[in-house]
């Protein structure tokens, strides 16, 4: 999976550089996020600007990160979700579960 990390204030921004998250790379994404959390990174922003497609396993990987960070009283935020991808969150009502923002700045500036 292609991704890169930026540190902005107290946030670790995980930029997904793949256009697609599916059963082929979602386990890797899930593990990657869990490792960040284990390292003590409890303020994570997942920046999804380049992601054109996500399937149920991709949602599952993000949900795993969300749950694990909640247990540490941290924040797990999603930003820059493309319209079709957002529909996936809406159909499963996960848009009410995740913290979702339009851009990384909106989170880090506050």
């Amino acid at each position, binding site marked *: 999976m292609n991704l890169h990390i930026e540190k902005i204030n107290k946030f670790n921004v995980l930029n997904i550089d793949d256009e697609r998250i*599916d059963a*082929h790379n979602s386990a890797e994404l899930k593990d990657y996020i869990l490792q960040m959390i284990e390292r003590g990174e409890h303020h994570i922003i997942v920046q999804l600007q380049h992601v054109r*497609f996500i*399937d*149920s396993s991709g949602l599952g990987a993000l949900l795993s990160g969300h749950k694990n960070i909640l247990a540490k009283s941290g924040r797990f935020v999603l930003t820059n979700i493309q319209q079709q991808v957002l529909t996936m969150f809406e159909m499963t009502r996960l848009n009410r579960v995740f913290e979702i923002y339009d851009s990384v700045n909106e989170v880090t500036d506050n």
Partner: protein
Amino acid sequence: MYPSIIQVDVIIPTQTKYLDFIGSIGERIAKELDTYTGDKAALAYQLNLVLTEATANAIKHANDQNQQDIVRVSICLNENVLNIKVYDKGQGFDLNSVPEPDFDNPKEGGMGLFFIRSTMDSVTYTKSDTENVLEIIKNLN
């Protein structure tokens, strides 16, 4: 007279790296629907999704010990109806006993068939001695 039909049959190895390929064929077929009046970008995504989810299940749950490890997918576009079949040679399962996700208490798994059911018009699963098939129908008008 031209029959308005496209038929695409695909065989891939049971490896998740081919999900993108299968999904992209669905996405590409949506482009051919010049008469579709709905949201074509949404339909393209849905076909990509449905093929991805169904094929991922066939890969995950249906590894066949005796035969070649392949998944067969058949997509048939007829004027107003899109018919997708995903075959597996695994143990099979009872589609009707798969519950909806619990939206108040979301879990990491169990959303695949929900997406297929909620974006398509009909979903059936038929077991047989030789091969099982998940059949998905989408009406296009």
